[in-house]
């Protein structure tokens, strides 16, 4: 199976401590050498609705984001395809259109990529500050490595 386009998206707010994890992880990933031009790195910031096209336009997508897991251990979580819950929250503002809604809508549009992977960590510190906490920084290499391994496996299949 061919992966003509692979999107790697970092989500988060860099001004909000560990909430910026996804964007920091993306920047680390972007520095890795050797990926072909079919691998695209996208700093999604805190955009919601504008990201839909980046999800629907590729064959495989990896999203880095801070998340709240069910068991809440301090480790890297990797959720693949069916393991990913996508749901629509009640919203007060269009600012709150998030990744979950994007995935839900992409699915209803019938444009969900063949592979959807969320790589995330539960945040340790959430306050108005720039930079990740030491605990979360320690998890960065593993998160980036998980993404690298997945992308390489997809490229090998192509």
């Amino acid at each position, binding site marked *: 199976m061919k992966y003509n386009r692979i999107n790697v998206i970092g*989500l988060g*707010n860099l001004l*909000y401590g560990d*909430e910026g994890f996804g964007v920091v992880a993306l920047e680390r990933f972007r520095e890795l050498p050797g990926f072909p031009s079919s691998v695209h790195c996208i700093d999604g*910031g*805190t*955009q*919601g*609705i*504008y990201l*839909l*096209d980046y999800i629907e336009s590729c064959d495989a997508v990896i999203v880095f*984001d*801070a*998340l*709240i*897991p*069910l068991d809440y251990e301090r480790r890297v979580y990797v*959720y693949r395809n*069916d393991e*990913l*819950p*996508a*749901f*629509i*929250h*009640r*919203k*007060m*503002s*269009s*600012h*709150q*259109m*998030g*990744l*979950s809604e994007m*995935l*839900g*809508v992409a*699915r*209803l*549009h*019938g444009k969900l990529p063949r592979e959807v992977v*969320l790589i*995330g960590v539960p*945040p340790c510190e*959430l306050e*108005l500050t720039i930079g990740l906490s030491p605990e979360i920084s320690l998890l960065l290499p593993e998160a980036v490595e998980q993404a690298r391994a997945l992308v390489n496996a997809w490229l090998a299949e192509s």
Partner: protein
Amino acid sequence: MGKKIVVDPIPRIEGHLRIEATLNESNVIEEAYSTGTMWRGIEVILKGRDPRDAWAFTERICGVCTTVHALASVRCVEDALGITIPTNARIIRNLMNATQVTQDHLVHFYHLHALDWVDVVSALKADPKQASAIAQSISPWPKSSVGYFKDLQQRLVGFVESGQLGIFSNGYWGHPAYKLPPEVNLIAVAHYLEALDFQKEIVKIHTIFGGKNPHPNYLVGGMACAIDPNSDTAINIERLMMIKKIIDDTNTFIDQVYIPDLIAIAGYYKGWLHGGGLGNYLSYGDFPETSLDDFKTLLWPRGAILNKDLANVIDVDPRDASEVTEEVSHSWYTYAGGDSKALHPWKGETTPGYTGPKPPFEYLDTDKKYSWLKTPRWKNHAMEVGPLARVLVAYAKGDPMIKDTVGMVLSKLEVGPEALFSTLGRTAARGIECKQTAGFMTHYYDQLIANIKTGDYRTFNSERWEPSTWPEECKGFGYTEAPRGSLGHWIQIKEKKIKEYQIVVPSTWNASPRDANGNSGAYEAALKGTPMINPEQPLEILRTVHSFDPCLACASHLFDMNGKEITSVTIV
């Protein structure tokens, strides 16, 4: 006093907007209090900076209406420095603004507000044949076959049954305040998905003129895009053709999808006419055909209406120190001259002083300060701004296009103009206005082509670009009508730097707390008197607050794996 309910979207993180409401024994809202739970502070960041950079900072206030602050900012700096922009720049700005309003209204209706009226789960029970017949009876939109609705319904069923996605699991589905038949719900869900797909086309216009979206580039003195029909890198024939196609498709979508849906849905809710609120409406006006000071040429007229008196539109001058003021008697700011003062933005101050409880808290002491939003007032009146205010000002002034469209909507719904003073009226006004701004897009496209044909390619006036050409001290005012309402930027420039900058945004007008005299803001007034069927599922509050299209500062977003509802509703 009966119960007190709190609707607080993100108690876990920094938060947006929080509504506290008290109910009487019959579950009717007696009082409501609106709180902005986050401080913006851009005014402080701007002090001492180059005024030509201000647009890039202010534009980041909002990631949804991503052009409006840039527009108000360049206008206020140009006003201060006495800069006249070229005709092409005026047209391009108007076209981008019309694009913004059209896209924003469409997204708001389908993706933020529709689910307050549309019961997604009910769509599973729809008869696709009937849905198709209804769709074809209200619109020539081609995606309306039995097969189309059947296919969508099957995807929806699969989606809901798969459980793991539970896409719409957090709505108040089955709430008795939902009135649409299953077939209309199914049509609305189909268009929810189509609108989401289509809206991303509209904003490509921003990318073409502004280089990127969100946050396209603006420029003090004009626009940062070159026009040259023979160049590959400028606005050329190919790009103009692309813009034309987007504009035509947008008009078709609004006419054949949005407006028929609005009328079809509103027809089932015309008994739900709560949420009127203040009855005071303000519009600065926008879409200048010549200069911004030539108010008579504004396609969206300027004016104010008090106490729903449509026979009397009052002149408005936001430069006048006695007209637009901001108070902090219930806001977490202090004024050097005392917190009971009301200051015009040219005398404005931004000094934060939080005196509320340490979060997390259960509720606020609303007799004291209770919001990060200041309290803007016009001649001491609390005012509603936004689509309803603009449509009413235009209607009262006899604008022919607005009179026609309002008349068409009212007659199809078989209601009188008094129905406009409601939550539903606000929602209808947004649709009416969206049809109008889609028309503006065509109008400005034609203007642009006509002007380019005269050989005028200018988009930038560099005469006052160099700070050496500026006066030692000056002040300016820039305004626009953003999708959510009247937006004003007031600047003072001294020694080539920003001395003071004040921004009064639409949601500050609408979501403001009480003023020193105890007068409620627009949200607070609109919620008062609304009956609630089930206070644990405050759908009625969401309807009214959503009808204003609240826009408070950008939230931190977190992927919640538990599928927990972020908008928490607690009864205390």
